[in-house]
């Protein structure tokens, strides 16, 4: 949750630079809010209206954000790395991934206190 600088890149050689640039964009942050259902309010790709999305864990330990309970749906985004300050996200839809590349969220403001993110839902759990 919170305010994030948001950047994206396609080439791995641009990753470090994109992280710096994303941090510089905290003046126009992307805001992630908690949802009433225990998830997060975020935008899926190409959707101007934010949605109530769930954190979902797959049996092999991967973490996704998306609609519904099934982890790894085509519209989901996967959190491929997260260290409390920087979150790396990739879209599962290859068309979307090809267009937006790897998304980098850099937390804005001072280093965060220990924040408990919404627990990812495992497949089959009640919504």
């Amino acid at each position, binding site marked *: 949750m919170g305010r994030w600088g948001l950047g994206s890149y*396609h080439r791995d050689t641009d990753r470090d630079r994109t992280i710096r*640039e994303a941090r510089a964009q905290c003046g126009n942050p992307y805001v992630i809010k908690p949802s009433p259902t225990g998830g997060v309010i975020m935008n899926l790709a190409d959707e101007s209206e934010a949605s109530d999305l769930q954190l979902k864990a797959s049996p092999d330990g991967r973490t996704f954000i998306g609609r519904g309970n099934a982890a790894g749906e085509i519209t989901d985004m996967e959190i491929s790395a997260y260290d409390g300050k920087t979150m790396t996200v990739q879209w599962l839809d290859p068309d979307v991934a090809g267009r*937006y*590349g790897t*998304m980098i969220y850099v937390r804005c403001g001072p280093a965060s206190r220990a924040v408990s993110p919404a627990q990812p839902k495992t497949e089959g759990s009640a919504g």
Partner: protein
Amino acid sequence: MWVRLRTSTTNFGAGLAACAIALVSASALATPLLPFQQTTEELEIDEQPGYVPPENAEQLPVGFERQFVFFRTTEAPGTIIVNTTERFLYLVQGNNRALRYGIGVGRDGFQWSGLVTVTRKEEWPDWRPPPEMIKRQPYLPRFMAGGPGNPMGARALYLGTTVYRIHGTNQPQTIGYAISSGCFRLVNDDVTDLYQRVPVGTKVIVRQAAKL
């Protein structure tokens, strides 16, 4: 992606820099206007970050392809002259000739006219969408590193100390139109050609049509 046309009054608000009115060049009066240049209809098209157009999409309409033309001017060879109403950019060659490129003109490109110089050049420039675009498309990254599919295209020529640029595009269908975002855009093949021809320090003249 949706596309719609609407008529623009071209009055973009008191908060923007005032536009100086310049006379239309003699060459512009002599050049027949193509149908989609007749009005100030603005092509409202959202930027498509990451979209890489097919090669055949870069084929420009007749008259908008890069070509040498008769162009009478007192400006020195190597000068860039942008005529926003015509949607053309001219690179003066001397001997009454110019290399003419078809362009799309964003709202920023209609806000001003005058004389600047190319102060910087960049290959595969980064893109930072403006706040008003982020408001419409909040899912957009606030920074996108340069590369194919980047809305800034293959090259950028930065003008003076302004935010204005001559740049490429990943939407070649916008060439010839007034568009809602950006400044002066060329297809990537043309902006790469122009980039190779002009050094930093090149004089750039932007001309807007006289308004009654």
